[in-house]
Structure formats: structure tokens, C-alpha cells
């Protein structure tokens, strides 16, 4: 782990060498708590122009009702910390409403993220009668209604994810009113203001509202400085802005699909207190009073993550029988064996176990978080698999839940049905791996799986899952074009485009929506703009069957050819030969493949039955 002192010099060297900050530097950036250091790191990162494509580019528009101060630098730090390469465009000072109303958020096109920095001054009337609190509360309500309208109009003109936040009520204003009754009325109006802002997230799919008021309440730092406010129209301190920047980093992480999906947990002194091999299954510390209740609360937190789609893996150096006994029989155990998609309880090194767990889940270790009380085990994983995020479970167990949840590793913009079903899906995936052992050839196995692929034109219900897949899929992502919800929704209703979801089921269960095709169909040549497929279902020929279906549709519509592209990234080499496998020929244009439909042979695998959901197709 890089310490704060070395961080800036290492970062400076990497930026100067046009390298994306290495993974350990990014981990240190993400863990930075000192806003001064974060600001200095951000200043270095503003000049970052990496020659590699290690970081995911994200364009951020920033509009503010006040001075943004160091927010731009702080955002560079927090965004690079989560693996993004930000290009931040700042709106003109004093033009907040005009910029929102005009819908022009960046000079070079639509940003991916539009951040709105709000402060109390925007909502307050120029003057009011302190003896009549309604002269204060009514204009506040009017102002928030205006802002809601502006934002409602702005989201129609942008496909950006619009992020805003709740606004703290300044103490000076509260204390201006001397009656407790009037103060309560003001506080109520202010809570209402924030409730109205939060409601925007329910009304518009592309709006995210951060509860900054409560984030700041948890911050052990001064969040306002009257001097800065008065001198520079800067209502928030560096500490407050850094807290906001970190929250925005979590949004970007979710928006870019960089969030984690798997939580690997140690047992002794992590999921329970004590060492089971020493005290026995019945005597581990779990439940009851402190400290046992802390371990139970961690189990509860893990269970709740699982309910939201996080896959749990057990990674413990222990005697498996003893562990099984504790998991099955301990009366306070909340996570029984069936809560875990993989149980790696043995005496082997944990890095090998985690790699194997990732393989059996068909997921990359990049989607793993590993929580362990042993600094040795964390260090070993940090060395061998630096892409895995680490959570320290040592120290007072009262901190366990916060240590796990505070970084927001698993954040998503919206929970989909697939998220909810994921742990069960991955359990059947593990069963499938066992089943595979009994067949002479992989084709026999695939036949026996009875795979059913359903292609459905995407409707508004499928849009969030399809956009999420586009954001999160790396291995089979042919062009890297990640259409967000707004764009996907627009394409799905545009007659010149076809957006199709892929749903797969087999004898072990329903995988849900696992892929999507984005096709432009305005000319005699249909163009596949992108094709994403979850790595969960790779290796079964599903991609060929789906493309074959597209070719059939194209031929039926009178098209003469289908064209596709492959844009290599650091992660999609698994899909590099896809177009050739599908019978397409490389063209003179780099990465473009072409198939004349008259030359088409049938590459659809015999073991997949393809259906289309007629009622949803135009």
C-alpha cells in the first residue's frame, strides 16, 4: 500500500510519463481522506493524458449555483480513483439557469455525466420579513419548483446522467429566526425542498440525487467557512467538496459499470469472532451481546448485499467439516452454506482459491472484493491479484459493517431483476460446472443443456437492464460503445434502429437478459453498432445464434448485407474472432467485417433453440 507521502511523487512521475496511474496508485487515491492531498493529486491529474487505455474515459459537465472552488481538482482524484479518465467541462459562473435552460452542457457534445452543484443561496429570496416566516418559506417552495421544471426540461435534451444533491440549511439563517415555532416552519420547508429534489430521482430515470446533507452530517470536519462564502461565493469547504466528489466518484463507478459483483469473505474473526479450529463450531463468537452482535451484523449486511445481487464467496483456511457444522448448526448463523455461490474452505492459498472461484463463476477477479482480518492474507491477495479490492476486518468488530459498506464497491444506478436473481443464477452456474464432468464431448454437454435463446425487441422495461449490460460487459463487448439508458430508450423506438435483448434459459434455470444487439437498419446494409453478451453465457454459441437471427431479419427486410465492427480493448480479446467465426469477411476498413446475405451459410449452433418474442416485435 502506497502511503500518502509517496503518493504525489509516484503520481507525478506516472502523469509525466503519460501513463495511467497504476492500480496501487488508484487504490491509494480512492482511499485518500485528506482533502488537501486530494486537491494536490487532482492538480497533477488534470494534466493526465495517458497513452494506454487502462482508464475509462468519462465526460463530465459541471454547472453550479456558486463558485466550484477546488471541486474540479477533487473530482479528478476521486474519478481516477475509481478507474475513470475524466474530462471535466465547467459551466460559466453565474450562468447556472441559462446553461440548464439552453441544454448546452459541453462544447464538444453531450457529456456522460452532468453534475449540478447547488447551494442555499439559489433557493432563498433576496429579502424577507423575519416576523412572517411564510415570506421566507413560500419563495423557497417556488424556487425549488422552478428548479424541478428546469431539470425536467434539461433531461429531455441530454442523455447524460444528471447528478444533483440535497442542500444543507445554513445555521445563520436558522438562527435569524428567534422563535422556535418559526424555526421549525423553516426547517420543515427546507426538508420539503430536499424531498422535492430527491423526488427527481424517482421521476426521471437518468437523474441521480445524492443526499449530501447526511453525507456532510457524518463528516468529522468543518463543512462551511463563512470567510470563503463571503469572499469567493464558496459555500463549501474543501472537506465538504471532497465528500461530494467521492460520492460523485461512486456514481461514475456505477455509471461506467466498474462496480464489483462478488464479495469474498473470510470466516475466523471476520464472519464470526474467534478461531473455529481452536474453540469448536459451537463456541465461535456470534450474536448476543457485543462483540458477537457485530459479527452477526456483518452477516446481515452481507445477506442484504446478496439480496441485491452481490455474489457471496467463502474464502477460509479451515477444516471444511468444522465449518460446515458451524454454518449448519450455529443458531445465530445468518449466512448458511446456500448463501454462498462458492465455498472455498481448505488449506490452499487464498489467491488460488479466489482465481478458481472467479473461473467457476465465469467472472473476472476484477469484480471481486475480499474481506479478511489477516493483513497477511490481504497482502498476499494484494500482491497476486491487485485488481481485487481489499477490506480490512481487523480492529474493533464494531467497525466491520462500515468498513465493508462505506466505499460503495457494489453501487449500481438502479437494481434490475437480474441483479435480484444473480446469486441464484450463479449457484445454478456452479451446478452446471459439476454437470459438465459427465459428458464425452462439449457438444453432447451443450445438447443436454437444452439451451433456449429468446430475442426480444427492447421495450421500456428492458431498457435499464440492457443499458446496465452495455455498461458492465467487458469481455464480449465488440465495439466498446456503451449506450446509456436514454440513448438505448431512444434507439429502441427509432424505426432506423433495432435494439434486441437476448434471454437465455436451460435445464438449470433462467439466466434472464444476458445480452443485447444494437443495430442500425436504415440502409440496404444493416450495421451492428454493438453486441454485448454477459461472460456468464460465453462458450455456448449463443452469440452465433443471435447474429444468425439478425441476418434472417435483415434478409426478410430486403437488406443485402450485414456489417459489424470489432474495436479491441484491453479486455475483449475473447470476442476478437467473433465476426470470422460467424462467416463475415474483413474489409479494407480497420476492424470492419462484412457479410453479403446471399453468401450466408448457417452458423447457428444446432444445440440452441431460438425463439423470438413476437408480441414485442414491431
Amino acid at each position: 500500500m502506497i502511503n500518502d507521502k509517496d503518493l504525489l511523487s509516484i503520481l507525478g512521475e506516472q502523469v509525466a510519463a503519460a501513463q495511467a496511474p497504476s492500480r496501487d496508485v488508484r487504490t491509494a487515491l480512492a482511499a485518500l481522506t485528506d482533502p488537501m492531498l486530494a486537491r494536490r493529486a487532482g492538480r497533477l491529474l488534470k494534466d493526465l493524458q495517458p497513452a494506454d487505455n487502462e482508464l475509462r474515459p468519462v465526460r463530465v459537465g459541471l454547472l453550479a449555483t456558486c463558485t466550484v472552488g477546488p471541486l474540479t481538482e477533487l473530482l479528478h482524484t476521486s474519478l481516477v480513483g475509481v478507474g475513470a479518465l475524466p474530462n471535466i467541462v465547467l459551466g460559466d459562473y453565474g450562468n447556472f439557469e441559462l446553461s440548464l435552460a439552453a441544454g448546452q452542457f459541453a462544447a464538444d457534445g453531450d457529456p456522460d455525466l452532468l453534475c449540478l452543484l447547488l447551494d442555499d443561496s439559489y433557493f432563498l429570496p433576496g429579502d424577507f420579513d423575519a416576523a412572517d416566516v411564510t415570506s421566507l418559506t413560500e419563495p423557497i417552495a417556488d424556487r425549488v419548483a422552478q428548479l424541478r421544471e428546469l431539470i425536467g426540461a434539461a433531461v429531455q435534451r441530454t442523455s447524460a446522467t444528471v447528478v444533483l444533491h440535497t442542500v444543507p440549511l445554513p445555521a445563520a439563517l436558522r438562527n435569524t429566526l428567534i422563535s422556535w415555532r418559526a424555526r421549525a416552519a423553516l426547517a420543515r420547508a427546507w426538508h420539503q425542498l430536499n424531498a422535492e429534489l430527491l423526488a427527481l430521482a424517482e421521476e426521471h430515470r437518468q437523474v441521480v440525487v445524492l443526499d449530501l446533507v447526511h453525507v456532510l452530517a457524518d463528516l468529522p470536519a468543518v463543512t462551511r467557512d463563512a470567510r470563503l462564502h463571503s469572499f469567493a461565493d464558496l459555500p463549501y469547504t474543501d472537506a465538504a467538496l471532497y465528500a461530494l466528489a467521492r460520492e460523485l466518484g461512486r456514481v461514475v463507478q456505477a455509471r461506467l459499470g466498474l462496480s464489483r459483483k462478488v464479495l469474498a469473505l473470510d470466516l475466523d474473526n471476520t464472519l464470526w469472532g474467534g478461531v473455529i479450529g481452536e474453540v469448536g463450531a459451537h463456541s465461535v463468537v456470534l450474536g448476543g451481546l457485543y462483540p458477537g452482535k457485530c459479527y452477526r451484523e456483518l452477516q446481515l449486511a452481507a445477506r442484504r448485499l446478496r439480496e441485491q445481487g452481490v455474489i457471496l464467496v467463502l474464502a477460509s483456511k479451515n477444516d471444511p467439516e468444522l465449518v460446515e457444522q458451524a454454518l449448519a448448526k450455529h443458531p445465530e448463523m445468518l449466512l448458511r452454506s446456500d448463501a454462498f455461490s462458492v465455498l472455498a474452505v481448505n488449506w490452499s492459498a487464498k489467491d488460488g482459491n479466489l482465481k478458481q472461484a472467479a473461473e467457476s463463476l465465469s467472472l473476472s477477479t476484477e469484480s471481486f472484493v475480499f474481506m479478511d482480518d489477516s493483513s497477511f492474507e490481504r497482502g498476499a491477495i494484494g500482491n497476486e491479484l491487485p485488481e481485487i479490492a481489499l477490506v480490512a476486518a481487523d480492529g474493533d468488530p464494531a467497525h466491520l459493517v462500515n468498513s465493508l459498506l462505506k466505499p460503495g464497491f457494489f453501487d449500481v444506478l438502479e437494481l434490475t431483476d437480474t441483479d435480484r436473481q444473480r446469486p441464484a443464477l450463479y449457484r445454478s452456474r456452479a451446478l452446471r460446472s459439476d454437470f459438465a464432468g459427465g459428458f464425452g464431448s462439449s457438444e453432447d454437454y451443450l445438447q443436454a443443456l437444452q439451451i433456449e435463446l429468446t430475442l426480444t425487441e427492447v421495450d421500456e422495461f428492458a431498457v435499464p437492464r440492457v443499458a446496465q449490460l452495455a455498461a458492465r460487459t467487458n469481455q464480449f463487448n465488440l465495439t466498446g460503445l456503451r449506450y446509456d439508458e436514454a440513448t438505448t430508450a431512444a434507439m429502441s423506438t427509432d424505426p432506423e434502429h433495432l435494439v434486441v435483448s437476448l434471454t437465455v434459459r436451460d435445464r438449470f434455470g433462467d439466466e434472464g437478459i444476458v445480452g443485447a444487439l444494437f443495430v442500425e437498419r436504415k440502409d440496404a446494409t444493416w450495421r451492428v453498432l454493438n453486441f454485448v453478451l454477459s461472460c456468464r453465457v460465453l462458450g455456448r454459441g449463443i452469440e452465433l445464434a443471435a447474429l444468425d437471427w439478425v441476418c434472417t431479419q435483415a434478409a426478410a427486410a430486403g437488406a443485402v448485407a450485414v456489417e459489424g465492427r470489432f474495436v479491441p480493448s484491453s479486455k475483449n480479446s475473447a470476442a476478437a474472432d467473433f465476426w470470422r467465426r460467424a462467416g463475415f469477411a474483413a474489409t479494407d476498413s480497420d476492424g470492419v467485417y462484412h457479410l453479403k446475405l446471399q453468401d450466408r451459410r448457417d452458423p447457428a449452433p444446432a444445440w440452441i433453440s431460438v425463439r423470438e418474442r413476437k408480441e414485442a416485435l414491431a
Partner: protein
Amino acid sequence: MSEPTEVQQTVLTILSDVLRVSVDDLRQHPVLAAYQWDSLSMLEALAQLESSLGVSLDLRFYQQARTVDDLLSLIADSRAGTPAGQR
């Protein structure tokens, strides 16, 4: 008498970082207006100075400071005039 030297060193280091000039340059040319001493850098230096030195400065006098020495004497006044318990 080593404290002023330490404070001086801290102030020079912070200013050199914020203004992106070397400590030697600041020593030789201590007039702040010769560098990018605008409201943004002023406030960044203020935040760093206050957190590193445990002082709270009066912005009226801070913004009038012309040289590194002006800042040093402002900080010295603040340290002398503020009982430790209230810092």
C-alpha cells in the same frame, strides 16, 4: 528560536506547491503578485496554511499580504494572539 524557521519552511513549502515555483525563487522574489497569486491560489494556500499550522487567519489582512514576509508576520500574530486552547 527554532519555531519561526519551521513555520517559515512550512509557509514556503506550501506557497511553492500552490504557486508552482521553487522555494528558492520565492526566497529571492518574495512579492506574491509576481506569481499566480489569484483568489483561487490564495484560498488554496489559506486552507493549507491553516490546517498545517493550526491557525485561523483574518481574511481581511490575509488578502492584503503582498509578500511572503507579510504572510509570516500575519501567521506569527495569529499564533501569538490566539491562546492554544482556542486554536
